[in-house]
């Protein structure tokens, strides 16, 4: 539920930007036929319904389609990143001030709780609005139940005040009694235009979408404006089709048949409450010059394409993005450690996770200087003293951000987590099940060398991969982490998991990395990095864990880098 809600929130944010753009564009299109304004709303509708879109360089979108990361519920410092500072900064300030600070020893994060509660509130609101709409529809149906046939699909009844169209499959036009034949003629044209344009389906459908986004006032305004544009463009269509000047009569009909807005989900009624504006529009109606229509058409088309597609994601990462990735790294280590701890007998996984979280927070979260985001992850050899066997040499993962990192080691009979100081090679034990202790006598650089005896290969695999070999790096991809960083010579690329591309430094070619495996509906990726004799890594994506395909070859380094690219030293 929370995941769905976050998706809705993201769509809502993206769509709000587009909606605001449409509102601006409507001002520009003021003199143009209203049909163009009406058409523009389709892109808002699209954004409200689809969490993804096509990426193109030809995009006006200022905002990222995934402003709220799905892993925000695990985040130590939750934040929203639309890419629009004007929006992000106030929103994030609110998030940070309203929510209690994350306490790593608690099992759940405050934002997690908050989002879960909000998700249910959202669902309740959605259902309530749908029920309201259905009841309204049934009520209206009942009201026109005994309406009597005039001709074709036109019915009349004394129970309604204004004409409207109702029905989904075979829509009918309902007239109140006592409408003069002259009025009847162009009201009929108006309603028939609605039917021809399928407005009787579009409007209820738009309402359902609105109900999904009921918490967003921008969408409410959009809905009202869209209804208005829909009506005005229909008015114009009638005036355009009629040869003599009926502007006065038509406005009079609008006035005499205007109704108070009784229901939010009006059927497409003739006399809706924005009558004043419609009368002005009708009275000012002139048959539009051809060139205005052409210019408007081009404008609308460019607008629609520009806002339907997302900006291609090759762009320099912001400081916030760098921080976000750092955070994800922490989440990863946290996860990793709790997995390791599951095998320990002396300490419960919850305790171990809480301890790890606190240390990681202290050592990564709080102290990290925004500029330090260099991370390397390596499989190293560490000499350990275990209770069973002194001076055992074990394989361990090390994760480094700058000079600091976490070392985790696991074996059949023990687990270990320590804070690593890369400069001194010192390891401070955080927690060690089975009274084990790392003897931090080997300088880190030495260990570094040990890590790459012969094959110099890094295997990145999903968390369920069990590759555990001295010659192979293993990197587990955190299920909550939805992005990975791949850098080449200083240029950073960050992307959601389903959008990973690698740019080859030599040729400039861009390769897409396929998601090759799904575990519990969460996509995972796996790929190799092999270091060649020249010391340059080759990236190999594997479409299954046994058959590697080389998809990129060139100066690609793996890791995270703010200014200096991470290098995987041979």
């Amino acid at each position, binding site marked *: 539920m929370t995941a769905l809600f976050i998706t809705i929130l993201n769509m809502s944010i993206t769509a709000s930007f587009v909606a605001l753009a449409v509102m601006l564009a409507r001002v520009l299109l003021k003199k143009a036929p209203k049909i163009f304004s009406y058409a523009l709303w389709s892109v808002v509708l699209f954004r409200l319904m689809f969490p993804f879109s096509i990426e193109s360089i030809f995009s006006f979108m200022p905002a990222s389609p995934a402003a709220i990361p799905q892993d925000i519920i695990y985040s130590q410092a939750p934040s929203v990143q639309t890419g629009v500072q004007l929006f992000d900064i106030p929103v994030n300030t609110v998030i940070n001030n309203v929510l209690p600070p994350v306490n790593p020893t608690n099992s759940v994060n405050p934002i997690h709780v908050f989002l879960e509660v909000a998700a249910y509130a959202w669902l309740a609101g959605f259902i309530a609005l749908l029920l309201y709409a259905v009841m309204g529809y049934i009520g209206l149906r009942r009201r026109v139940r*005994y309406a009597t*046939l005039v001709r074709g699909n036109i019915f009349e009844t004394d129970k309604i005040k204004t004409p409207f169209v109702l029905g989904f499959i075979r829509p009918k036009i309902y007239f109140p009694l006592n409408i003069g034949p002259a009025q009847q003629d162009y009201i009929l044209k108006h309603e028939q235009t609605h039917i021809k344009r399928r407005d009787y389906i579009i409007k209820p459908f738009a309402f359902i979408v609105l109900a999904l986004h009921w918490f967003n006032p921008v969408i409410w305004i959009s809905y009202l404006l869209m209804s208005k544009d829909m009506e005005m463009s229909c008015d114009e269509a009638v005036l355009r089709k009629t040869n003599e000047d009926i502007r006065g009569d038509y406005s009079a009909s609008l006035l005499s048949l205007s109704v108070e807005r009784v229901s939010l989900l009006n059927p497409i009624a003739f006399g809706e409450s924005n009558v004043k504006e419609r009368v002005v529009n009708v009275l000012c109606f002139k048959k539009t010059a051809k060139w205005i229509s052409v210019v408007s058409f081009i404008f609308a088309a460019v607008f629609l394409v520009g806002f339907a597609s997302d900006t291609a994601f090759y762009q320099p990462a912001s400081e916030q993005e760098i921080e976000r990735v750092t955070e994800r790294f922490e989440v990863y280590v946290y996860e990793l450690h709790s997995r390791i701890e599951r095998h320990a007998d002396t300490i419960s996984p919850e305790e171990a996770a809480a301890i790890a979280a606190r240390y990681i927070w202290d050592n990564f979260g709080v102290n990290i200087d925004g500029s330090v985001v260099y991370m390397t992850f390596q499989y190293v050899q560490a000499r350990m003293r275990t209770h069973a066997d002194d001076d055992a040499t074990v394989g361990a993962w090390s994760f480094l951000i700058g000079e600091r990192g976490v070392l985790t080691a696991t074996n059949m009979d023990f687990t270990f987590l320590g804070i690593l100081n890369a400069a001194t090679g010192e390891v401070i034990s955080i927690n060690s099940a089975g009274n084990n202790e790392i003897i931090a006598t080997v300088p880190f650089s030495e260990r570094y060398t040990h890590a790459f005896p012969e094959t110099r290969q890094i295997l990145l695999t999903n968390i369920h991969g069990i590759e555990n070999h001295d010659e192979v790096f293993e990197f587990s991809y955190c299920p909550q982490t939805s992005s990975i960083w791949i850098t080449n010579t200083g240029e950073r690329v960050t992307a959601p998991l389903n959008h990973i591309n690698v740019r080859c430094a030599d040729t400039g070619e861009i390769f897409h990395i396929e998601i090759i495996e799904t575990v519990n509906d969460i996509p995972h990726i796996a790929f190799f990095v092999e270091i060649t004799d020249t010391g340059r890594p080759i990236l190999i994506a594997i479409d299954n864990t046994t058959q590697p395909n080389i998809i990129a070859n060139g100066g690609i380094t793996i890791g995270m880098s703010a200014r200096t690219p991470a290098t995987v030293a041979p």
Partner: protein
Amino acid sequence: MENLFKLFDAEYKFMCIVWTHEPVNSTELTRICEKELGWKKPTTYSMIKKLCERGIMKNEKATVTTLITREDVQKYEADVFIHRVFDGSVPSFIASFLQSKTLSNEEARSIKAMIDGVVK
């Protein structure tokens, strides 16, 4: 039972059909209503039921007959109208009616005869 004769537009149109065709088989009636009023079968049946409950018509052995006449309804509507618009004053109603109309001798005579008939 004053409101026995108070009919909505749809009810009145429906009654007109029944007055014209009664006694009428209810299946036949649904056929006529479908053609004349655009009603589906259930709509006609529920209308019959509603009017039967009000005692305006009856449906026995699938034969529909009315219990009130067209004149009853017209009289009721005329009364309501005169009452509402002319404060119940028949002369002012007729005055207003005659203002915009010219009557032929024939018409005038028949109206006069009507008036004589009701004078006590």
